């Protein structure tokens, strides 16, 4: 047995201390690395005191059954976290944005807020009204959320957590109405205009629509205008001024829209009907086609008999890479900056992406949850399957890449006027460009924010 000198003992202790130190350093580094963007949510103990979260949401309008799902999810979460109570408040379509703007001004309101994708989630982030979910949800989890990085990221952060996917926006066609006049489902623009001519001569609208509340204008911009651009960066370029909304790739869709008016494609009362009111004409067999929200498309098809309905992208006119493709956007939930329980809110968001919740979402709404871990094998309905698949590598949804004010003040209004026949497509494009130039002056941070977003 060899005697160990004091020096050797000292050396051994130093080596051990060094090894422990190295191990601790590696461990700490790895923890801080993996959790760097998630603000150490997992390492922080979940609060044991009573917590109440308020969630303002929207979505039952386009994904019927969402309310039932949310009730289920809140109940299930209460079982998991008995100290957390979640109050949910369903918002109206017109009230969603203004109500949150008022809450943000008062820095008081919901902990969790529903946002449409793209600019509707970016702007609150730029204005400091929401805390990036990537600060509270680990990157390993967020990477599964569909469209999180395409629409919702900004300078390495992700503002909001995608909830469900909205294939944007399918056209639904009724075979019975078309075949009555010896017509088939149009696939190209020329075919569409031909259908319009034949049906309008019989007093039947080829397309049912309602633009009184404006929203349908944004849909039309996205599904017709998306056919001539090459990427969402084109749209952002027109926003920041390196391209123009009067350039052919941005303006031609207005001419196409004018053509639909000239060929009497739409119901004559399009300007006095709201979006959802007009869709009823299709269900009633009074129109051959209409455009519906992606999550609701299967319900529309089933309402008239799945074999009688065709769900498809807008007939093709453009030569861009997205012509004939459906757009894809995710509707999202954000955590407000003033919430005192951000990590609990994030925990609830992650809970909604657990397998049981994803499956229940599909069961309740028949639409696609925004998570690539959703088991697609349970989707048997061919219409739904095709719809879900179309949304995965979908086209950019244009409306989400322009300032919201440009959407309401130029797109909504000019679509009403073009479809009314009081404005030409060319004049509408010029108006959109003029308004964009003005917006660059009124919103002094617009160019900078959009430029950063596009990078």
């Amino acid at each position: 047995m060899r005697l160990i000198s004091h020096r050797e003992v000292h050396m051994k202790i130093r080596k051990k201390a060094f090894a422990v130190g190295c191990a601790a350093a590696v461990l700490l580094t790895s923890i801080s690395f993996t959790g760097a963007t998630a603000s150490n949510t997992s390492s922080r103990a979940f609060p044991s005191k009573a917590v109440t979260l308020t969630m303002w949401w929207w979505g039952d309008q386009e994904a019927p059954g969402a309310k039932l799902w949310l009730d289920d999810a809140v109940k299930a979460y209460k079982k998991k976290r008995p100290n957390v109570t979640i109050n949910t408040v369903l918002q109206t379509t017109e009230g969603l944005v203004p109500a949150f703007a008022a809450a943000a001004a008062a820095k008081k309101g919901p902990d969790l807020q529903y946002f449409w994708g793209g600019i509707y989630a970016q702007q609150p982030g730029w204005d400091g009204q929401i805390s990036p979910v990537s600060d509270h949800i680990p990157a390993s989890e967020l990477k599964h959320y569909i469209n999180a990085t395409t629409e919702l990221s900004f300078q390495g952060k992700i503002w909001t957590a995608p909830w469900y996917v909205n294939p944007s926006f399918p056209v639904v066609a009724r075979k019975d109405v078309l075949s009555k006049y010896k017509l088939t489902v149009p696939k190209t623009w020329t075919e569409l205009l031909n259908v319009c001519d034949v049906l309008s001569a019989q007093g039947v609208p080829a397309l049912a629509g309602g633009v009184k509340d404006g929203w349908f204008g944004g849909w039309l911009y996205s599904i017709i205008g998306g056919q001539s651009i090459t990427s969402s960066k084109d749209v952002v370029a027109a926003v920041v001024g390196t391209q123009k909304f009067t350039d052919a790739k941005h303006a031609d869709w207005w001419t196409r829209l004018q053509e639909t008016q000239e060929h009497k494609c739409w119901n004559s009362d399009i300007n006095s009907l709201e979006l959802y009111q007009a869709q009823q004409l299709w269900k009633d067999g009074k129109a051959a086609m209409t455009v519906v929200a992606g999550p609701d498309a299967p319900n529309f098809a089933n309402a008239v008999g799945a074999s009688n309905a065709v769900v498809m992208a807008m007939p093709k006119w453009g030569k861009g890479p997205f012509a004939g493709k459906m757009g894809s956007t995710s509707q999202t939930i954000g955590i407000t900056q003033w919430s005192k329980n951000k990590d609990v809110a994030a925990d609830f968001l992650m809970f909604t992406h657990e397998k049981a919740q994803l499956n229940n979402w599909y069961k309740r709404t028949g639409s696609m949850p925004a998570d690539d871990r959703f088991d697609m094998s349970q989707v048997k309905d061919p219409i739904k399957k095709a719809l879900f698949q179309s949304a995965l590598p979908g086209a950019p949804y244009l409306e989400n890449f322009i300032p919201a004010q440009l959407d309401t003040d130029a797109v909504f209004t000019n679509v009403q006027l073009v479809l009314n026949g009081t404005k030409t497509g060319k004049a509408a494009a010029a108006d959109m460009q003029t308004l964009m130039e003005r917006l660059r002056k009124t919103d002094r941070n617009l160019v900078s924010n959009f430029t950063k977003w596009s990078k």
Partner: protein
Amino acid sequence: MIKSLQTEDRFTAPRNLGAVFGRLDKSGPLPWILPAAMCILLIFGYSIIDLVQQSFKYRGEWVGFENFSLVVTDPLFRTAISHNFLLLFAVPVLAVLSFMCAVLLFETRKGMKFYRSAVFLPYILPIPVIGVVFGQLLQLNGALNSALRAMGIENLALDWLGEPGQALWTMSGIIIWKEVGFGTILILARLISLPLETLEAARIDGAGFFRLHSKVTLPQLKPVILFYIINEAIVMVSWVFNYVYVMTNGQGGPGNATVVSELYIYRSAFQNKSPELAATAALLLLLATLIFIIGFFKIQKNANRGLFDE
């Protein structure tokens, strides 16, 4: 005699109370109006100061008159103001209709209570209810047009709220329908309180219906009609938001055909997230409304003087 007693009563009560509080009496009415004045100053004064401050700032930084320049040069703001101005044309229509309704009700011998309620009913209906009902009723294929088509007058079946050229006039028609009840009741109340002797004397002198009410009744109703006109002018300039918001789903459409200044302010603040531009537009609207408010006070002063002179 009666008048002097009323006047005495009016002034002795505070005096007695003033005696209880001793020195308060010497400072006149000030102590009595001070609590209310403080509340008003706190609520409105603070808001107005904040409004003025905001209109000169952008994201907290001083920008001088930049916001004013942006608002005044905004074609949409100018359109909105022009629509408010056009809505002012409804005011004389309202005044004439209200006067006529009031006189007819005054002359009605049977069922006055029923007719009075019927005329007043639209005024007490909530604007959202009116908006929703008229929104449905006036659709191109709505109930009104269906009725017109059934009667064979299809040419009159218009897209009342969907056609940019007529949407604002339709809107003003709905506002008139609702607001005429207020004017009728206001004028009728004054009409009932007029001394009957004058009317009787005019009748005995041979004045017919039109001469009686145009030459005898109308001049006596002048103060209340003027008050009503000023009140409705304020409504048209800064109180029509609810109608437009409900009937056009917050859009002011079709196009910008029904955008009014309040909707412009609301959209700037809550949809477009430009509180500074909203504050600037609100300040300009406040100044415009102030003109009417000053007019209102002047008329009220004259009317009071007229009453005391009686």
